[in-house]
């Protein structure tokens, strides 16, 4: 009896190991496919540069249509930073440094990261759903049968659009956040307006801070768009498949952005020192 129970328990453990192994293989296989996919998209980019109209069209749907959510989110984040920053700084009689606090927080961290998360949620999910539906309705196969390469006509313009839009959206987010912080700090809590701008101007460095935010937003735009495009193109061509791909796209892109943020922060801080 005891031997039987031991055998069952050992089998259970073996099954768990086999399952974990299987999942690891699936993950590696998918990652490899995503890498090859990215390679093909990047190879197709030179062909797209000859047709800027395609890129402009996608910058509109990927970037311009995301502006509203970025404006609103940037304003709320700026308002909260103003409140929290004032609340902490006033204890040390250094509320005049509110501009520095808001500026550095937004430009170095929150601007690129929150914008990338919003980008993954709004533009990334829309891209995945669009591509998944194109696959489900055989539009990719239709393009291939018309001797049109979907990588050149559909995927590469979207990749470039994400790459171009993200830094611009992050800049808009940070600018609105700074204004919202000003509104709370200077307008409502009585911080001196000159001190707010002067402190920010002296503390926020172009190379160290603005460029850090720029490189981050560029990397996040690249990563979030890559994930969104791959999930859409690789989606199972059914309604359920497209739904699953869209969810996966947002989750994977968000985690990738957060992980990448840590790596980039460590790397850029190291470079700065």
């Amino acid at each position, binding site marked *: 009896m005891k031997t039987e129970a031991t055998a069952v328990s050992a089998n259970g453990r073996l099954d768990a190991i086999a399952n974990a192994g299987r999942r690891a293989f699936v993950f590696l296989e998918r990652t490899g496919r995503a890498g090859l996919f990215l390679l093909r998209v990047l190879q197709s980019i030179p062909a797209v540069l000859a047709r800027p109209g395609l890129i402009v069209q996608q910058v509109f749907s990927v970037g311009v249509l995301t502006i509203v959510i970025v404006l609103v989110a940037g304003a709320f984040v700026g308002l909260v930073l103003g409140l929290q920053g004032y609340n902490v700084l006033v204890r040390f009689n250094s509320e005049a440094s509110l501009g520095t606090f808001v500026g550095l927080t937004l430009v170095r961290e929150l601007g690129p990261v929150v914008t990338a998360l919003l980008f993954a949620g709004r533009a990334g999910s829309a891209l995945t759903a669009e591509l998944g539906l194109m696959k489900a309705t055989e539009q990719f196969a239709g393009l291939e*049968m018309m001797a049109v390469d979907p990588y050149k006509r559909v995927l590469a313009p979207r990749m470039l659009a994400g790459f171009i839009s993200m830094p611009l959206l992050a800049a808009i987010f940070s600018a609105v956040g700074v204004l919202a912080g000003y509104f709370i700090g200077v307008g409502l809590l009585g911080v001196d307006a000159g001190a707010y701008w002067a402190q920010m101007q002296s503390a926020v460095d172009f190379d160290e801070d603005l460029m850090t935010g720029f490189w981050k937003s560029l990397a996040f735009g690249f990563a979030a768009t890559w994930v969104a495009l791959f999930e859409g193109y690789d989606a199972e061509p059914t309604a359920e498949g497209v739904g699953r791909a869209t969810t996966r796209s947002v989750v994977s892109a968000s985690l990738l952005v957060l992980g990448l943020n840590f790596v980039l922060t460590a790397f850029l801080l190291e470079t700065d020192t």
Partner: protein
Amino acid sequence: MQFLLCGRVYPALHSVQCPVQAESCRLTGPGQTVKLPARMQDSPGSDILIRVRGLTFRRGERVIFDNVDLDFQRGRITAIMGPSGTGKTTLLKLITAQLTPDAGSVEVASRNIHALSTPELFEMRKRMGMLFQSGALLTDLTVFENVAYPLREHTQLPERMIRYLVLAKLQAVGLRGAAGLLPAQLSGGMARRVALARAIALDPMMIMYDEPFTGQDPISMGVLIKLIHTMNDNLGLTSIIVSHDVVETSSIADHIYVISDGRVMDQGSPAELERTASEWARQFLKGLPDGPVHFHYPAGDYAEDLFEN
């Protein structure tokens, strides 16, 4: 294949000077040279446009095609028929090199399509039209733009000429009036007709229809049958129809292959298949509920199943 420009007929694949006085030409503009869409240079010596030999294709453990030979004759309508899930659409994907076979070859216009480089394959595909079951229209483009799409991608025709060609193709399928509509505003039958207009935009040598009659009302079905027949005869196309609609397909096909279980069960003209000796083919073509394909899914003894403890 001929090409009409400003009232004159040209063989395709030519650069021509607009024949009308520069100022009065409404299509090309003053003194413009027009490169007409490429027309296939298939080897006209052979009667067989597509030759499939020893085709074997598997999905995992499942064998979809097992050493299958098929011939598609130039200028004729050949139908591939068989039950759902037998791989009819897969066959079209193999013929167009969207899939690669495990063994065997597919020769289109005397060239092994799976041995072509990507640019060569795309050149070949310009000469192959395909009508997908869903239409596969680009949903963010109007009907006009959908039909114009291959012309814009593969030719340098002036806008006036593109408009002329697109309207001519849409007129041929009876949907010139729907040029401004979006695909979402079309019925299933209309979407397939637009897709047909798009498929013939580059004047292909052949056209493949994937389940063209599925889900169509009788009027749409009649329209599609007429269009496929007319297109084939008037444009000198070679047509392949994949379908399980026996009556409709038999009414226009010159030759029919009946496939199942990865092999050709029977073949011949519709009249020959009427008198087929194959019991399986007879059951399929006449839609009999029982025969070699049993009504019951394999199961144990009924009484035993009912009264077992």
